[in-house]
C-alpha cells in the first residue's frame, strides 16, 4: 500500500471550492448592503459625509472627564430625586408647550419609520447573506490554514538513492557530520516567520468580511436600535465561529488519526473500525490476487438498510451499488476487484444449541451474526455472477466463506496484512503488520504465512451456506414445522432470534414509527419494524432462492421457487 500520497498540498480542490463560494457571498452581501445604503441615503436625505461627521462627533464626545462622572453616577443613588425633579409641577403655559414639543420630538426620534415590504425583504436578504458569508469566512479560514500548513510541510520525498550516490562521490564525512548541501535545505516556508502569514489569514479575512456588514449596520441605524442590531450580528458571528471550531476539531481528529496510522499502523476503537472498513474496502477494490480473512463480525453495508423502498430490496441495493461506482459498498468493490476471496468465520455450535433458553442479548447477537453471514453470502454470489458476466471469456475467481474455528484475526489483501485484536465487543485494535516493511520479500513472506494460516482454518471447516441451511433446518425442527409445508421463514428466523434483534438493532439502524432514510453518509437510518423485518427476511429469502436455484440435486421439483418447502433445504445439505 502507498502510505504517503504523492503531493498532499495538491489537495487544493476544497480551498478553491470554498473560496469561490466565499467570493460570491461577499459580492452578494456587499452589493445588497450598498443597495440598501443607497435607499437609505436617498430617502432620508443622508449624505455619506454624515457618517464621518457622526464618527467624529462620537469620538469627540469621548472624554476622560466622563469616566469619573460616570463612576460617581454609578455609585450615587439619585434615582429618587431624579424622579421627583421630573415630576415637579411647572404651571406656566410656555413650559407646557415646550414640554409638548419635547414629547413630539422624542416620539419622532424614537419611533421607527414605517416599514414597507420591499424594504423589509431587502433587509432580510442582506442579513441572510451576511450570516452565510460569515459562516463561510470561518470555513474558508480553516481551509486556507490547513492548505497553508500542508504547503509549509510539503517536501519532495527524500531520494535515498540520489543521496547515497552523492555520498559515494564525496570523500568521507568528517566526524559524522554531513556536509551542507547533502541534506535538503530548509525552505523559507519552514521557518517560524512563515507562521505569521498563517496567523494573519484569519484577521485579513475577518476584517474583509466585516465590510458589507458595516455598510449595512450604518444604514440600519435609522431603522432600528443600532446596538440591538449589532448584538444580533455578534450572535451570528459567535455561532459561525463555533461552527468553524467544531469542523476544525473534526478535521484535527481525522488528521491526528491519519498521523497515528501513518506512524504506527494502528486504528483504535469501534469508530476506528468503521474507518478501517472504508480503508479495507478501498484495498479490496484494488486487489489483484487474493483476499484471505478471518472475520469475527460480518458487516452489512449501511446502504443495504436504505433499500426500504417499494420493490425488491436486492434490486435497490444493486442500483445503489451502481450509483456509488465502486466506493463504500461491498458488492461494488468485489465486482471491481478480481481477487479470489476466502473468508473464515467462527460460528459456535453451542450458541445455536443453547439459543432457546438464552438471554435476549445473546439471541440478538446470534441472529446478527447469522444475518451478517447470510448477507455476505448473497453479496458474494451476486459479485461472482457479475464477474462471470464481465469476463465471459475466461475463468473468474470465486468468493467463499468457510465456518471454522480460527483463533487469529488476520486480514490479508494481496500483500497487506492486518491483525485485528478484539477487546470486548465494541473495542478493537487494528494493526497493519506490513506497514513498516519496506523489503518486498519480507512482506511476501509475512503475507504468505498469513494466507496459508487462513487457508488452514478454511480447509478444516465447512461451507457457510451449509451452516446457514442447517441452522434454518434446526430452527424448523425446534419450531415443529413439517417437511412438506411451505417454509415458514418468519417463524424460523424468530426462533433464531430475529425478534430480539429487531428490538435493539442499534449499530445497523434504529427502529422508528416510520422509515426515515437520510442519503448522507454516516447518518443513522430509521426503519419501521415491519420494514426492518422484511429487510432481514429478504436476506435469507434471497440466499435460499439463489442456492436452490442452482439445482444442486438434479431432482425435478426440488428447486421450485414458488413453493419453497422445508425439505428443499436438504438439497444443500446432502
Amino acid at each position, binding site marked *: 500500500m502507498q502510505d504517503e500520497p504523492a503531493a498532499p498540498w495538491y489537495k487544493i480542490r476544497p480551498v478553491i471550492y470554498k473560496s469561490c463560494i466565499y467570493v460570491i457571498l461577499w459580492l452578494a452581501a456587499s452589493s445588497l448592503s450598498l443597495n440598501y445604503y443607497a435607499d437609505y441615503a436617498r430617502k432620508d436625505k443622508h449624505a455619506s459625509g454624515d457618517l464621518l461627521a457622526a464618527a467624529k462627533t462620537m469620538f469627540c464626545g469621548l472624554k476622560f472627564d466622563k469616566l469619573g462622572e460616570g463612576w460617581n453616577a454609578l455609585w450615587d443613588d439619585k434615582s429618587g430625586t431624579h424622579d421627583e425633579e421630573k415630576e415637579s409641577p411647572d404651571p406656566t403655559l410656555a413650559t407646557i408647550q415646550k414640554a409638548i414639543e419635547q414629547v413630539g420630538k422624542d416620539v419622532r426620534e424614537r419611533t421607527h419609520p414605517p416599514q414597507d415590504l420591499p424594504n423589509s425583504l431587502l433587509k432580510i436578504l442582506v442579513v441572510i447573506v451576511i450570516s452565510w458569508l460569515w459562516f463561510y469566512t470561518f470555513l474558508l479560514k480553516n481551509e486556507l490554514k490547513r492548505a497553508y500548513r500542508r504547503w509549509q510541510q510539503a517536501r519532495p520525498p527524500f531520494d535515498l538513492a540520489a543521496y547515497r550516490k552523492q555520498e559515494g562521490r564525496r570523500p568521507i564525512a568528517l566526524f559524522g557530520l554531513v556536509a551542507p548541501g547533502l541534506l535538503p535545505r530548509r525552505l523559507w516556508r519552514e521557518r517560524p516567520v512563515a507562521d505569521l502569514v498563517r496567523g494573519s489569514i484569519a484577521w485579513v479575512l475577518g476584517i474583509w468580511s466585516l465590510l458589507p456588514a458595516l455598510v449595512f449596520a450604518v444604514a440600519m441605524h435609522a431603522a432600528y436600535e443600532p446596538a440591538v442590531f449589532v448584538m444580533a450580528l455578534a450572535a451570528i458571528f459567535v455561532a459561525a465561529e463555533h461552527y468553524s471550531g467544531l469542523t476544525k476539531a473534526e478535521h484535527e481528529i481525522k488528521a491526528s488519526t491519519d498521523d497515528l496510522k501513518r506512524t504506527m499502523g494502528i486504528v483504535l476503537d469501534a469508530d476506528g473500525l468503521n474507518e478501517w472498513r472504508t480503508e479495507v474496502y478501498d484495498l479490496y477494490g484494488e486487489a489483484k490476487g487474493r483476499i484471505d480473512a478471518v472475520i469475527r463480525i460480518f458487516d452489512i453495508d449501511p446502504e443495504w438498510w436504505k433499500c426500504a423502498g417499494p420493490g425488491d430490496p436486492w434490486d435497490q441495493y444493486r442500483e445503489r451499488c451502481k450509483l456509488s461506482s465502486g466506493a463504500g459498498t461491498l458488492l461494488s468493490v468485489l465486482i471491481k476487484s478480481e481477487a479470489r476471496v476466502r473468508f473464515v468465520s467462527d460460528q459456535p455450535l453451542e450458541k445455536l444449541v443453547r439459543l432457546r433458553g438464552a438471554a435476549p442479548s445473546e439471541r440478538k447477537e446470534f441472529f446478527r451474526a447469522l444475518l451478517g453471514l447470510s448477507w455476505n453470502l448473497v453479496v458474494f454470489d451476486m459479485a461472482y455472477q457479475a464477474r462471470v458476466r464481465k469476463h465471459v471469456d475466461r475463468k473468474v475467481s470465486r468468493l467463499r466463506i468457510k465456518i471454522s474455528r480460527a483463533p487469529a484475526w488476520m486480514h490479508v489483501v494481496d500483500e497487506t496484512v492486518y491483525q485485528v485484536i478484539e477487546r470486548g465487543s465494541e473495542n478493537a485494535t487494528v494493526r497493519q503488520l506490513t506497514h513498516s516493511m519496506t523489503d518486498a520479500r519480507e512482506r511476501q513472506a509475512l503475507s504468505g504465512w498469513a494466507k496459508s494460516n487462513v487457508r488452514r482454518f478454511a480447509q478444516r471447516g465447512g461451507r457457510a451456506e451449509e451452516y446457514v441451511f442447517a441452522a434454518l433446518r*434446526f430452527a424448523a425442527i425446534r419450531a415443529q414445522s413439517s417437511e412438506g409445508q411451505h417454509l415458514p421463514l418468519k417463524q424460523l428466523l424468530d426462533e433464531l432470534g430475529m425478534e430480539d434483534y429487531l428490538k435493539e438493532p442499534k449499530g445497523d439502524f434504529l427502529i422508528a414509527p416510520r422509515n426515515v432514510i437520510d442519503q448522507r453518509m454516516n447518518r443513522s437510518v430509521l426503519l419501521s419494524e415491519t420494514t426492518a423485518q422484511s429487510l432481514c427476511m429478504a436476506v435469507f429469502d434471497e440466499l435460499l432462492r439463489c442456492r436452490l436455484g442452482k439445482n444442486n440435486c438434479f431432482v425435478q421439483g426440488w428447486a421450485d421457487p414458488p413453493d419453497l418447502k422445508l425439505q428443499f433445504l436438504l438439497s444443500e445439505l446432502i
Partner: protein
Amino acid sequence: MRDLDPLVFLARDFWNDVAKISRIATAKVTAPGAALWDVQMQVCQALGNAYPVMVEHLLAYAVELLGLPRMGGGGRNASASSKQTDDFLLRCAQVFELQEHRKLEERDVQTRGDELLMENLAAAWLGLYFLGLPFSHPWEKVRRLADYRGGFPSGACIAKYAGDIYRLARHRMRERTPTGAQAALLPGYTDHDAAVLVLSHTPLILLQDALGFQDQTNVTPSSVHQLGRLYTLLQMMLYLRCDYPVHFFIPISALGQSLRTLAGIPDDPKAAPTNPMRQAYTRVRDSIRPWLFGRMVPTHTGQQTVSLLTLPSDASGMPTCVLGNKTGIYTLESGDSGLHFAGNEINEALLASYRDKLKMLFVLKEDVGRHGPYQLDEDTRIISLLDLNEPTFDDLFRKLFPDL
C-alpha cells in the same frame, strides 16, 4: 445406573442413536433403486417422532464433546482438563460396556484417548449428517486433533474424509459450469485433472460386504465405522450418478486378499479355510458384478472407469488413496503398523505427486486398448471392468479368483 453422571445417560442415548441411524441409513442407501438424493429425508421419516429428540441428543452431546480439551494435553489448566478428560474416558468405558458388552482396556484408555475423542466427534458429525444437519463443527475439531497427532485413526474418520473428497469434488464440478452435470457429458470431454482418482485395496465400489466389515482393532462401537463407510458409499454413488469423472484402480492381489478377509479366512497360510468360509468367499466374489453394474455404475460413460491392475509393481509404493482435485487421503489399512494413526490428508505437492503416479496408469490402459481389453495374457497389465460384458466378467473373475 442411578448414581451415574447425567452425561453418561446422554452418551448412552447418543451411541444408541448412532447405532439406530446407522441401521436405518444402511437399509435406505443399499436398498435396490434407492432414491439417494432423498436419503436424509427417508431417515427422518423412518425415525418419525423420535427424530427431533434424536437431533437434540446428538447436538447436546456434540456440544459436550466440542468443549473437551485434547486428551492427555498438559499446560496451565492441566488439572482441570485432566478431570474433564478422565470423566470422558470413564463415560466411554461405561457406555461401551453397556452397549456392546465390551470393556475398554486400560491400555486403550491410556494411549488412545485422542482417538476416542476423534471417533466420538466423527460419530456426532455422521449422525447429524444423516439427520440432515451437517454442522461442520465436530469434524472441524477432528481435523484439528488430526493436525496435532499427525493423522486420523483407522475407520470412521478416514472413511468420512474419503466421502468428503467425493462430496467436495461433486460441489466443485457442479460449480464449474452453470449447467453442471450436462457439461461433463459433452462428447470428447475428458478432464483427468478434475477427475477423482482412487487406488483402493478394499474397494467399496466392488465389495458391498466391505460396508459391514468389523475391525476388531477399533476402539469405538462398530456402528460409527459402518456409518462412516456408508457416508463414503453414499457420496461415491452420488458422484457417480452425476456422471462426473472418476477412475478406480484396484490391484488384483489386494482384491484377492480383501475377498479372503471378508470371507473370514485367517491370514495364516497354514490354516485351511473351512467350508462356510469357502462358501462365503464364492458368495462375495459372485456378488461383485451385480453390485458394480446394478448399483454403483448402472450407466457407463467413458469418464468413469474401474480397472484391475494385474502387476503389483504398477501400484507399488502407493497406499490406498482417494485423490480429489484439491485434497486427498491415504490410508495404511493396518491397525498394527505401529503408528498411532492410520492415514492422513494429502495436499499440495504430495497430492500432485500421487496424482501423477496414478495418471501414469492411463497410459497403460491405452496400450491395452490396442491389443483388445478382453485378452488376459502375460502382457495385460490393466483390465477395464466396465468394458467387459457379463459372461466375460464372470469368466474372468472365476479365473482370477478360483474357488477355494
